[in-house]
C-alpha cells in the first residue's frame, strides 16, 4: 500500500547555544495516521513540533509539509498552508480576552470571511464535536477547568478543518477518565475528518489506544518509528525501561485486556 507522506523531516539540526537538541533527525508522517512522539524530558519533542509548524527556524536541515518548505514560502502561500494545520499547545494558549466561542470563531472570521453569526454557528458545532456543553461557549478561558481548556483548544485547532493536527501533550493534567475520553474523541475525529495527527505525549495509555505508529526521540534523533509492538520490542535500554517499566506494563496489560 502506497501512503502519501504529508510531513517530511530531513537531516534536521536544532541547537540552542551549545546545547544540541536534534542532530540529523529524519521523520516521515503519513496521511491519515496518528503518530505518537515519545521521548524523555528535554529530548526536544516540543522543539520538533515547533520546527515542523514553522515557529522555529532550524539550524540546518529541511522540513516539508505537503511537499512545501514553510520557511521559504511567500507570506500568502505560507498563510494558506498554515490554514491546513491545527495546533493544540501544551497550555492551550487560548486568547484570554476572548470567550471560548470567540476563540473558535476568530480564525473563521479572519480566514474564511464569515460574518460573526455564521462563524458562531460553525464554532458551536466545533464546540459540540470537542465535547463541550453549549454554555461553555460564553465563558472566558480563565473560568475553565484544565480539561475544558484542552477541549476548547482542540475545538479551536479544528476550526478551519485542518488536514494535520499537532497535539502537544493533550492528556497531560487530565484525570484518567477525561484522558480516555480525549483519546476516544481523537480517534472519532481522525476517522471523521481523515486527520493526520502528530501527537507528542507522555501518556502510555494514549499510545496504546490511539496511536498507529510511535516515534521514539532519543540521542538527538528519531531512534525508531514503527507500530507499537515493534517499538516496544526494540532492545534499546531507554525504550525497554519506558515501555516495560511499571507504568508501561500496566498500560500494556490494560490494552491487551481491552482487545480480548
Amino acid at each position, binding site marked *: 500500500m502506497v501512503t502519501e507522506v504529508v510531513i517530511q523531516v530531513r537531516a534536521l539540526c536544532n541547537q540552542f547555544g551549545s546545547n544540541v537538541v536534534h542532530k540529523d533527525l529524519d521523520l516521515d508522517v503519513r496521511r491519515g495516521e496518528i503518530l505518537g512522539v515519545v521521548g524523555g524530558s528535554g529530548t526536544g519533542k516540543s522543539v520538533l513540533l515547533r520546527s515542523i509548524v514553522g515557529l522555529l527556524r532550524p539550524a540546518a536541515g529541511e522540513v516539508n509539509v505537503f511537499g512545501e518548505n514553510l520557511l521559504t514560502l511567500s507570506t500568502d502561500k505560507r498563510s494558506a498552508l498554515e490554514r491546513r494545520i491545527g495546533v493544540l499547545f501544551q497550555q492551550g494558549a487560548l486568547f484570554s*480576552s476572548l470567550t471560548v466561542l470567540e476563540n473558535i470563531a476568530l480564525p*473563521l472570521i479572519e480566514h474564511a470571511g*464569515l460574518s460573526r453569526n*455564521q462563524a458562531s454557528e460553525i464554532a458551536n*458545532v466545533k464546540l459540540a464535536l470537542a465535547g463541550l456543553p453549549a454554555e461553555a461557549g460564553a465563558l472566558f478561558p480563565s473560568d475553565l477547568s484544565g480539561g475544558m481548556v484542552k477541549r476548547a483548544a482542540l475545538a479551536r485547532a479544528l476550526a*478551519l*478543518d485542518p488536514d494535520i493536527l499537532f497535539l502537544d501533550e493533550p492528556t497531560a493534567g487530565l484525570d484518567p477518565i477525561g484522558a480516555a475520553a480525549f483519546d476516544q474523541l481523537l480517534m472519532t475525529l481522525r476517522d471523521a475528518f481523515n486527520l493526520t495527527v502528530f501527537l507528542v505525549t507522555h501518556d502510555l495509555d494514549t499510545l496504546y489506544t490511539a496511536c498507529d505508529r510511535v516515534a521514539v526521540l532519543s540521542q538527538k534523533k528519531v531512534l525508531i518509528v514503527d507500530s507499537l509492538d515493534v517499538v516496544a520490542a526494540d532492545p534499546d535500554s531507554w525504550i525497554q525501561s519506558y515501555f516495560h517499566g511499571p507504568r508501561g506494563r500496566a498500560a500494556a496489560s490494560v490494552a491487551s485486556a481491552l482487545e480480548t
Partner: protein
Amino acid sequence: MTSPLLLQSAPQSPSTASTDEAVWPKLCLLGDWTLVNYQELCRRAQKPSETPRSLDASGLLNLDTAGATLLVKLLGAEALATLIPDATGLTDERRALLQAVADSMLDREPAPPSTYRWGDGLERLGLWVHSGWSQFTQFLGFTGLTLVTLIGLLPRPWRWRWTALVAQMQQAGLNAVPIVALLNFLVGAVVAFLGATVLTQFGATIYTVDLVAYAFMRELGVLLAAILLAGRTASAFTAQIGSMKVNEELDALKVQGLSPIELLVVPRLLALLITLPLLTFVAILSGIAGGAMVAVLSLDISLARFMGIVQQVPLIHFWLGLSKAPVFAVLIALIGCLEGFKVGGSAESVGERTTSSVVQCIFVVILIDAVAALFFMEMGW
C-alpha cells in the same frame, strides 16, 4: 444555477421511479458544501418545505464541517441523524463526518442569548457605585494590612529585605531622576515665560523669580514628581504583581508560608517613601534652574540677583511642598500594589488594572494636593 439543496417530492420520470414509496420526498445534495462556499450556500440553500425521507448525495462534490453545520441548521440534528445511515452516494469518510457532527449536536439546547431588558442600565449604575465603594473599603483594608505587616517587621531587623528595598529604590528613584529633572526644568522655563508675559505689563518682571520659586517649592515640584511616579512606577508595580498573580506565583508564595505583603508590598512602599522626597528635591531644583535660565537669557536678570531673590523666599514653603511627598508616595505605592493584587486570570486584566492604577494615582495625587493647598491657605502658612 440550481440550488445546492434540492427537494424532489416525486420521481422525475416514471421509468426511473423507485418501487420503494418510502424514499420520497428525497433530498439531493449538490455541489461544494465547504467553508469557502459557506456564504454562498447560506444564501441559496432553503429550508426544505417537507420533511425529507431519504438523502441522495451523489451530486455532492466536497463536504466539510461548515457544510455539515449548515445541514444541521437546515434539517435539524435529529432529522439528519436518521437520514444518514440510508443515504445514497456518500463515501464512508463523509458519512462518518456527517454522523459525527449530527451526533454531537443531538439534544443540544442553544445557549440562551443575552437580551437587553429595561432596568439593565440602572442595574449597571448600581454595580458601578457598589464597585466604587468596595474599591474604597478594599483600599482601606489593604492599607491596614500593610501597616500591620510593617509594624510587625519593625522589631525584627533580620527580616528587613535590604536587597529588595535597594533594587526598588534604584528602579523607582535613581532611574527616574533624568526624566524628572528634564520635565521640571522645562516646566520651570514655561512658568517663567508665562510670568514674564503677564508681569511685564505691570513693570514687575522681577517678580517672575518669586513666581517660579514659590510655585515649585510649594506645589509644582512635588506634584510633577508624583504624577511622573504615578505613570512610571505605579504602572510597573501593578504589572509586576499582576503577572505574578496570573502565573500563580502569589499563591506559591502563600502556600510556602511567605507573606506577599511583606515580600512585595513593604519594600516597594518603603522605596517610594524614601525616593519621592528626594525626587521632589531634584524636581524643585530643576524647576528653579529652568526659571533661572529664562531669567538670565531673556529677562536680563543676572544669576546672582536671581539667587538672591530665591534665598529670601521663606523656607516654610519648601517644607510645605516636601511634606506632601511622603503622603503621595504611600498612596502611589499602595494603589499600584493593590491593583496588581486585583488582577484576574487573564492578560487583558493586567492591562485593565494597570490603566486603572495610573488613573487612580494621578486622580488621588491631584485631589490631595488641592485639599492640602486649601488647608495650608486657611492655616495662613
